[in-house]
């Protein structure tokens, strides 16, 4: 495509808007077109927000790598990452702290994208893996391994993935009625969450004190002590499924208008839902196996991304970047405030996420929507 690229504004700003709504006009959309017939639609604000979120995530990552018993400045961290650090620095960065940060970024991105998918498919801002039972399913899997088999890290992760996938399949089957429909999906998910949580409580009564402590730490969600063994499987899942989800972002956007309207526009409604939900379930299962069910991340990241981009629709990419930025920043914050590895990051995301939810409810009530 060697051709001139011309840029047009997709909007004429001459549109007569009422005085009271003048401040509420749409965002500029730019189209990039080539003479070869390619055209991309770029929402300037979404693009800027995405770049900023990625920058925040990377910046927080560098800070996080420099944090610990052996503090390092950002300059040293970058030097070490590019291969010009001392042997000691290389050991600390590459073997100890980089895997933790990578797990944080990948888990955050996976929860962010999966959360946005669940919310869009269920047409409900509360439709997140914590509410729909997927996190509880993973927890049951992990706890079974901890309590009955006294398994190690790898076995616990495997149990968690199995729990997440089995729960996903069960919810699919129960919610299936000639396709997957948002309302039914939410209700089945909430029912599954309640039952699975009861099983979690039962397993806790069966655990001895050591197992119970291990279980609680796992359930809170933490990034401490993550190494390359956790990075690779998660990275493979993310590299395959996040781009796949983004590809389906366009038809997913159409689904917001209702099944009939989407279908009339040529969206294969059921296929889009099944592919995206399967991808989201696997992303959540892999992320939960690596770091535990980090509370509220999948719920808040898409909502925050949406408010920042002010763009309707699922906003999968900004949601993923927001998840990554949030989790790494929360981990860095919790280490700054409470000391290294004193507080699992899940506690902080739970506090922040819960607070955010209350703020959301309050502001929606002011706007008269609840």
């Amino acid at each position, binding site marked *: 495509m060697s051709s001139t690229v011309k840029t047009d504004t997709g909007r004429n700003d001459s549109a007569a808007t009422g005085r009271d709504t003048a401040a509420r006009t749409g965002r500029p959309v730019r*189209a990039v077109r080539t003479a070869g017939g390619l*055209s*991309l639609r770029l929402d300037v604000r979404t693009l800027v927000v995405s770049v900023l979120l990625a920058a925040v995530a990377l910046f927080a990552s560098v800070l996080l790598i420099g944090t610990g018993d052996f503090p390092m400045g950002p300059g040293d961290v970058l030097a070490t990452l590019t291969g010009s650090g001392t042997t000691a620095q290389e050991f600390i960065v590459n073997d100890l702290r980089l895997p933790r940060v990578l797990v944080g970024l990948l888990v955050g991105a996976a929860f962010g994208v999966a959360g946005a998918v669940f919310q869009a498919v269920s047409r409900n801002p509360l439709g997140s893996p914590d509410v729909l039972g997927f996190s509880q399913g993973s927890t049951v899997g992990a706890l079974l391994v901890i309590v009955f088999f006294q398994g190690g890290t790898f076995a616990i992760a495997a149990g968690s993935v199995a729990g997440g996938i089995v729960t996903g399949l069960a919810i699919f089957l129960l919610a299936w009625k000639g396709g997957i429909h948002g309302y039914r999906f939410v209700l089945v998910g909430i029912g599954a969450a309640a039952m699975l949580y009861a099983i979690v409580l039962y397993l806790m009564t069966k655990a001895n004190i050591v197992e119970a402590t291990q279980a609680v730490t796992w359930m809170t969600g933490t990034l401490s002590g993550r190494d390359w063994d956790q990075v690779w499987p998660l990275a493979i899942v993310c590299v395959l499924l996040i781009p796949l989800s983004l590809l389906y972002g*366009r038809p997913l956007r159409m689904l917001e208008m209702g099944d009939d309207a989407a279908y009339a526009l040529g969206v294969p409604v059921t296929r889009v839902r099944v592919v995206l939900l399967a991808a989201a379930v696997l992303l959540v299962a892999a992320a939960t196996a690596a770091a535990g069910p980090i509370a509220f991340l999948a719920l808040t990241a898409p909502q925050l991304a949406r408010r920042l981009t002010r763009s309707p629709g699922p906003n999968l990419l900004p949601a993923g970047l927001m998840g990554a930025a949030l989790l790494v920043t929360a981990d860095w914050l919790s280490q700054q405030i409470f000391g290294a590895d004193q507080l699992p990051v899940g506690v902080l995301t739970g506090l922040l996420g819960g607070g955010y939810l209350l703020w959301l409810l309050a502001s929606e009530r002011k706007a008269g929507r609840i």
Partner: protein
Amino acid sequence: MSRLTAENVTLAYDQRVIAEDLSVAIPDQSFTVIVGPNACGKSTLLRALSRMLKPAAGSVLLDGAAISSLPAKKVARTLGLLPQSSIAPDGITVADLVARGRYPHQGLLRQWSGEDERIVRESMEATGVGELAERYVDELSGGQRQRVWIAMALAQQTPLLLLDEPTTYLDIQHQIEVLDLCAELHEEQGRTLVAVLHDLNHAARYATHLIAMRAGEIVAEGPPEQVVTADLVEQVFGLKCQVIDDPETGTPLVVPAARKAREAAAAGAS
């Protein structure tokens, strides 16, 4: 000629059969209106014609091919549908919503061509919502909103457009506005329109081809002047009436018989 036909279709939701062995052909370039009492199956027929509902038996053909075997996006470039209920996403502007009508013409690498932009602008102008382009859809009145949805369906640029009760929930002036718009699309752009309407007089005034249904069967079809008669209205709707010439357009106008006359007739019959 008919690009869109249904051949011996049986229409059912789960086990509940709405219509059996129904055949219908939509004349090309017509403004076809389907009328009938509630639950007669008129919306169900429209859903089948627009492939929202797969017939339990028989098939719906588009240009001679079974519509269910064609790729969804390909059908969406030929046949558009304005569903009865659509959800405007939170915080979407009119221009953005109308732009979504271009979806079947777009792809990953062809997301927003100059043609898309031109057609979206023309669709908004044709429906009189060009002025509202940057406004939020949820701030609009019911009539404006319906015109935005029609603009979206227009942007899809399909030669065939199906509308499921496009005037429901609208005030009378907005109903007429929407029907005028449909008539313009049909007359000026030569599109084939199929609509389900509740109001028989509106149907008689705007349709070029009328299909009257009762209990899952087609009772009569043809030009409104031939279909809308006092006998047929009584047969289809169970309502005694006079049919006179509409003083404005000369099309049939249904005037229900006075309550006393209907009661007397009912008493005489029993």
